[in-house]
């Protein structure tokens, strides 16, 4: 969310909610239990909408939000699962295509792209902005 706060006056942001990465009925991580983020893989659109709303409300997530429907069209078009970042330029072309998460998910690369366009925003701590839902499962 740091990236959003730093660059929302210069760029637009959109979070797209896709199929769950670690649902209870598939590959649940210990961290999910510890943080009480326990959801089964949604089987209906209503379930997906409910979880998305839980996320936004619980984390007070300010970034504009969209939900991929059960056809997973956005997920498939962008090879999004489990997490990925893209930047689309003003001409509708991919300007930055991030790697597949979690190991190749690097928000700092997206920040660098924005910084190269709009200038850096200094912070006393590390510049990498970690999305609220990203967990360290170590």
């Amino acid at each position, binding site marked *: 969310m740091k990236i959003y706060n730093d660059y929302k006056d210069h760029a637009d942001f959109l979070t797209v909610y896709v199929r*769950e990465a670690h649902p209870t009925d*598939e590959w649940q991580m210990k961290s999910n239990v510890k943080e009480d983020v326990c959801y089964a893989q949604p089987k209906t659109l209503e379930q997906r909408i409910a979880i998305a709303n839980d996320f936004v409300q619980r984390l007070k997530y300010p970034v504009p939000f969209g*939900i991929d429907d059960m056809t997973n069209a956005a997920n498939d*078009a962008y090879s999004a*699962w489990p*997490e990925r970042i893209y930047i689309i330029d003003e001409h509708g072309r991919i300007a*930055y295509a991030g790697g597949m998460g979690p190991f190749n998910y690097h928000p700092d690369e997206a920040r660098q792209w924005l910084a190269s366009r709009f200038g850096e925003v200094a912070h006393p701590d590390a510049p990498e902005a970690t999305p609220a839902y990203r967990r360290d499962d170590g």
Partner: protein
Amino acid sequence: MRTIAIWSSGILGILLLAGFVALSVMAGGPKDALYMLRYALPHMHRGKLHPGDDAPDARLLALNGKDYFHLRERAGARPLMVVFGSYT
């Protein structure tokens, strides 16, 4: 010939075991490694989009569960950063 087959099978088995051990270490345990293979691997894709490609469009649903919009509608006068993910 039979000896070669036995040796080859043995070496392959050891390599597979070593790979599974490495995956277990990466995933956090043997159970996680199995679940990764079962649930995550089918959905993992390197990604086919590169800088310069036209950004695909997709229909998305708003949080209210009623209104739809298109991803490309949000791209326009300014760069659009799109973050894909889920809650878990």
